[in-house]
């Protein structure tokens, strides 16, 4: 289950500024290699896709593999182009998706 995410986006920015975005999502990122109490491996359960769009246009994408640590943290940069909505979506290997958004004011 993809839990909630903490997202940091500056509330305002100057047009053309390169801003840093930080995200942290709650997820166990079970590798599939850990042995459970039954003696059998615990099945893999990971988020494998992360996308950030800016007013609908993709500005960043990441493919996660089991080597990404639990509760995946990723920070990246984007150019503050205009007022609008940054949308963040995390998708797991079953196809379940979680989307959260943040607003940015660009002057």
């Amino acid at each position, binding site marked *: 289950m993809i839990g909630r995410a903490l997202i940091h986006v500056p509330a305002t920015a100057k047009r053309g500024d390169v801003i840093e975005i930080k995200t942290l999502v709650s997820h166990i990122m079970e590798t599939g*290699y850990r*042995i459970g109490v039954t003696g059998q491996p615990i099945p893999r359960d990971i988020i494998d896709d992360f996308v950030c769009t800016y007013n609908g246009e993709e500005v960043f994408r990441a493919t996660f*593999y089991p080597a990404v640590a639990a509760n*995946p*943290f990723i*920070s990246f*940069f984007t150019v503050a182009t205009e007022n609008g909505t940054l949308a963040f979506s995390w998708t797991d290997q079953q196809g379940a998706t979680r989307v959260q958004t943040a607003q940015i004011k660009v002057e």
Partner: protein
Amino acid sequence: MSRYSRRKILQVSGALAGGGALTRLSIRPADASLAMMEEAVRKAIGNAPIEKGKVKLDLPPLVENGNSVPCTVSVDSPMTATDYVKAIHIFNEKNPQPNVISVKLGPRAGRANFSTRIRLADTQTVTAIAEMSDGTCWSDDIYVIVTLAACVEDPKP
């Protein structure tokens, strides 16, 4: 398995046996190796030659806990519409799987730089490869020492 020479398998097995620093709760396929990593690299970037440079991979040389290792990659690039980093991949050589993360960028990124936290199962070399818009590929790598926690506990509860 036939593509691996018997000698190579023995070499890898020896390294695994001597390595020691595996969490006792993990299984590891016997062929986790440099060859797997090379295959994963080719799958990601094709046959382009890889040059060292332009990429800076940041990892602590001695890791506090292999479950969560902070990792930053930055690439020297103006990130303009005609000259930008289009992808960055991180690979490892000793985890059960050679891929760590792949990132897709474009001119809108402004800066070819991202940070995350990764898992490292053993002392090993971690490699970052950047694909540029002009088709060239650049890399950096770091050798990281991973120890087990001092007091290994039983699993919860």
